[in-house]
């Protein structure tokens, strides 16, 4: 199929991308504009269940953007529902894109636009490494966090592309068909810059603390790339800890970051960022991540991976089941207190970040 865009041929060859039209939608600003023009314009109640939102708005093959920051305000419970519904062949993108490796084994994700996968000091993601080697995932592009973030920003700004000083002279430009290193036309002296096109993923879930039923939304803590993603993506679903009256948001004008017209659906989803951190609401489950890395992301025999996701995703029907497994109300209260103490809004004497192991230790079987 003929592509509408000019890609870096070396990167197409290095990545063995034979049909580059699979790359098009991510940078097709005109089609994103058309999608935006077709959205509901009135203020209507956009609430629906998470199941309905995933059914209606996630299509097989979509470019699915990871929002938040790895395990901070990331809509992990929405991602788990996407896995449960058996969506297929998604392209994963995000800065970072840590969480998109989970579904590869199940065919949920088949394509990667990579910036960073892993859990920082807790370890690299060996299951992703294994998936790459076994060709269960196909890499479509490699990015730095900054360059990808600028791609989302360009989209938010209505700028078809922008120049930056990241990515230059790295091998990533040989493994990214989108970016172009060119000479800055404003300067007489040679001045190489990297051109980053505006990036328009198909679908993003954004987990916020507060939204109204129309989709106006407010975020507490780092917004990371989410304000830009909300403006760029073709389909935007807000999952919210709390649905508040519109009048509440009208009293915090300067703190709200997403306007209703960008939003297709609003899901009331308390605990929607679990097992990650929702600023002001609950701290993450360190234990989940430690064990996730040792089991699900270990790259060992698939039976460990399957046992982990069976337990945490496929045998949970919703986030309440998940929370019960973490430890229910006792766990929740402790992690609410920890979160607020770490935010500096509760007394922080004697914060105890240790944990009892409640999680089955599959790899010690």
């Amino acid at each position: 199929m003929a592509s509408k865009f000019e890609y870096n041929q070396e990167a197409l060859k290095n990545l063995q991308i034979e049909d580059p039209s699979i790359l098009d939608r991510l940078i097709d600003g005109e089609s994103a504009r058309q999608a935006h023009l077709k959205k509901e314009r009135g203020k209507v109640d956009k609430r629906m269940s998470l199941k309905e939102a995933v059914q209606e708005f996630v299509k097989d093959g979509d470019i699915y953007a990871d929002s938040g920051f790895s395990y901070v305000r990331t809509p992990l419970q929405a991602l788990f529902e996407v896995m449960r519904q058996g969506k297929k062949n998604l392209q994963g993108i995000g800065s970072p894109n840590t969480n998109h490796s989970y579904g590869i084994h199940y065919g949920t994700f088949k394509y990667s636009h990579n910036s960073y996968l892993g859990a920082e000091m807790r370890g690299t993601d060996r299951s992703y490494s294994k998936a790459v080697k076994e060709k269960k995932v196909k890499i479509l592009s490699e990015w730095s966090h900054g360059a990808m973030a600028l791609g989302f920003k360009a989209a938010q700004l209505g700028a078809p592309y922008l120049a930056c000083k990241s990515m230059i002279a790295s091998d990533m430009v040989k493994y990214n068909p989108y970016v172009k290193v060119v000479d800055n036309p404003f300067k007489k002296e040679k001045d190489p810059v990297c051109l980053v096109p505006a990036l328009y993923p198909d679908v993003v879930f954004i987990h916020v603390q507060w939204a109204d039923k129309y989709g106006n939304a407010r975020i507490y803590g780092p917004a990371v790339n989410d304000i830009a993603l909300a403006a760029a993506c073709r389909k935007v679903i807000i999952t919210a800890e709390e649905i508040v009256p519109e009048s509440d948001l009208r009293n915090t004008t300067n703190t709200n970051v997403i306007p209703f017209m960008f939003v297709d659906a609003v899901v009331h989803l308390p605990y929607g960022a679990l097992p990650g951190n929702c600023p002001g609401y609950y701290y993450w489950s360190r234990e989940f991540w430690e064990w996730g890395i040792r089991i699900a992301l270990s790259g060992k025999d698939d039976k460990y991976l399957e046992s982990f996701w069976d337990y945490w995703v496929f045998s949970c029907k919703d986030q309440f089941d998940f929370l019960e497994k973490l430890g229910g109300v006792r766990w929740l209260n402790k992690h609410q207190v920890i979160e607020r103490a770490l935010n500096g809004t509760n007394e922080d004497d004697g914060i105890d970040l240790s944990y009892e192991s409640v999680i089955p230790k599959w790899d010690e079987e």
Partner: protein
Amino acid sequence: MSVAPANPLEMLAYVVSRHIKDKQIVYVGTGLPMVGAILAKKTHAPNITLVYESGGQDPIEGPMPWSVADPVTWRKSPITMEMALSFAQAANGYVDVAFQGAAQVDMYGNLNTHIIGNDFLNPKARLTGSGGGNDLISLTENTVIVGLQTPEKFPAKLDFITSPGHLYGGNSRKEAGLLGNGPVAVITQIGVYDFEPVTKRMRIKSLHPGITVEIAQACTGFELLVPEGEIPVTETPPPDVLEVLRNEVDPQKIFIAFPPR
């Protein structure tokens, strides 16, 4: 009361801290850079401003963050920035020094965090990718590289250039269009290195107690430049600083337990 001597990770954290001057704006990655920066703030550099790529900066004091997006990284911050703007702070000259690690470092301070092995589509190991590493070394005025030194981790040739240091030496970094001075130091469990001003090759600046040039070279996959004259011994942490590190900075030994947990 006697204090146990520093283990290699504690030594690393201490040397990182000594590379921070008071009042600097310091961009920190996860792990030892974070430990060293917080140690500096609690000892000789109380007026530094810490900046994290998740958007937090200048948090009030709290427990050791577990990640660069931990609530502690933006604990009552006067501002949090979107990711693109946080990197832009570096591009715009509002960061003095960034600290970062890597799976592989070459003699010009180029970094690899992408793959081990030379087949991108079928690597021996796929690593994390760039994250903010490429951005920080490309944009910040000064970069300090922090990591464990082995011949495999300091190879003659990288399997992948994720983050450009001095590229091929000489003026090649500047000619490529990158900002700032690039890497100015490398800190390992073996010693401290700088880059010779003309060739931009890695050069021994000091070696940790008990380490000889031969040992340092044996831990390195390329030829280290050796300065004229006697090679200084890296300053070791005094007991009071070690106690701050152990009791106040990372009391849970998340990052400074040796061997690592």
